[in-house]
């Protein structure tokens, strides 16, 4: 009887452990957050016209508490240059959860990104690297390589925020790795802030990026489409991450901005 009980108990325990291991981090399970995998679609929330944002890109604006939140898992980007490969653990499976929300008003498109980070890396010195986050949009459709686009015919538009310059977002374009270029028109705005927690691992970065719904640049993503392929990247400064040394969405998440054929925008 006793033996049976112990056996039974340890089996239940093993089962519980197995279940926990299947999730990247069971402490992050939250029924109010939708898990998004590459290939899934997300809908941009519509901010009512009578909502007034006191600060355009406030990463802690109360409005975000009322919008649906998504979570996706980022994995190390496959190395495409020997400098990254030298620093790449073979079979690297260190993943990272990124939480994101997408919204639009009748003028602007907003994305808020959050991720847990126990170290606030805001310095760019000879030997210290900064945290960062980026959103990548395919200018064309999902044929475009998620690894910085495929050539000049299938480029991507990238919005890049970095922790050493928290109130600025760089508007970039690329057509394949090695080709990241700063665009002339810098109309993406944003701001980020670090929220330390008593439990270090629960400390958070929150970053909001936004852009007017319409932008004319050749390499500015057209948001008025049925679906816009998007992907994310996070750089962990404390792991010396920079460049292709980062964690990314493998392939695309499909964003529906609700703008296509919308008469009110």
């Amino acid at each position, binding site marked *: 009887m006793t033996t049976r009980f112990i056996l039974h108990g340890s089996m239940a325990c093993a089962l519980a452990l197995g279940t926990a291991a299947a999730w990247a981090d069971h402490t992050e399970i939250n029924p109010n957050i939708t898990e998004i995998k590459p290939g899934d679609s997300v809908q941009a929330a519509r901010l009512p016209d009578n909502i007034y944002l006191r600060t355009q890109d406030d990463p802690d604006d109360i409005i975000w508490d009322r919008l649906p939140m998504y979570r996706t898992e980022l994995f190390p980007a496959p190395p495409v*240059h020997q400098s990254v490969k030298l620093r790449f653990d073979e079979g690297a499976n260190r993943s990272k959860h990124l939480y994101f929300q997408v919204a639009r008003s009748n003028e602007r498109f907003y994305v808020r990104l959050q991720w847990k980070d126990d170290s606030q890396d805001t310095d*760019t010195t*000879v*030997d210290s690297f900064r945290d960062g986050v980026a959103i990548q949009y395919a200018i064309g459709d999902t044929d475009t390589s998620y690894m910085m686009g495929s050539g000049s015919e299938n480029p991507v538009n990238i919005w890049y925020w970095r922790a050493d310059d928290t109130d600025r977002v760089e508007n970039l374009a690329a057509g394949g790795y090695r080709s990241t270029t700063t665009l002339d028109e810098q109309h993406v705005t944003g701001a980020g802030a670090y929220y330390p927690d008593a439990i270090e691992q629960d400390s958070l970065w929150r970053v909001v990026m936004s852009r007017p719904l319409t932008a004319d640049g050749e390499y500015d993503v057209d948001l008025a489409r049925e679906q816009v392929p998007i992907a994310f990247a996070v750089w962990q400064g404390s792991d010396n991450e*920079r*460049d292709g040394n980062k964690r990314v969405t493998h392939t695309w998440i499909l964003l529906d901005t609700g703008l296509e054929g919308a008469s009110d925008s």
Partner: protein
Amino acid sequence: MAVKRQLSMVLDLNKCIGCHTCSAACKLMWTNRNGREFMYWNNVETQPGLGYPRDYQNMGGGFDADGALRLGRQPSQEDYGIPWEYNYQEALMTGTDPWLRPHVKPTWGANWDEDRGEGDYPNSYYFYLPRLCNHCANPACLAACSRNAIYKRQEDGIVLVDQERCRGYRYCVNACPYKKIYFNEQISKSEKCIFCYPRIEKGLPTACAQQCVGRIRWIGYRDDEEGPVHQLVEKYKVALPLHAEWGTQPNVFYVPPLSPSRYGTDGQELDESRIPLSYLESLFGPRVGEVLDTLQAERQAKAEGRESELMDTLIGYKHAEMFKLS
């Protein structure tokens, strides 16, 4: 990396007096402003010594025997030395602090171990080693850059960082085994010696070579048989690259230093040089002994009143003739 022509420099370590005029000339010309204040595109270090940045010779980088890029250690701020300032205002003007002192405890800096060297009296020894970017034929910085931001000019082989393309990843800093690429924290981009290309394009030598009071530097094209570099490197073969084993094929060459003989325990002169040959070989490779023999023989010839084209070149009677830039 094949280029049409390669500009090179030869430095005669027998003539370097360690005055740092080259470093000062470079600094005034390029690195006294805009986040470059603490960079030394050219520096002079005492060898044997840790060099600059501290212990760079053991940081790795360069290429392995198979030609694959080698991962190095990223130099820290301490390796370069934390710059310090003095409280002049408080100590000397207002008198609010009785002591004149640096605001951080100095622990390391460029040339920190000057004139220390190795060995015990009467066999102590050191020499000066001026260093600049080697404008390598196989630059590790270029190979390491994931953005093609570093390029080597076809017309003269000068290696440059395209400041428009650089995004400050610092792979190049890690990869250069000579640690001659510096990260500019103010602009978040990497910068390095540009071999004074705006001067070169006007037919002028680099600032470090022009200002050198010891006349230790020659500049010329490798393929110019009339030029001094061809003569020293190819014809007489007395100029050697620093750490050729790192695989980058440097285009800066050094004439290794001769030294007086060692003293035995009872004061007799021994038949070996004060600077151990093995030490020089660890820097300049296996041909050092042969080069020192040539120098010795040619020096003797000149002392005896015989002709020596090599010695005439090495003496550098006319400074302008040490540079052949066309």
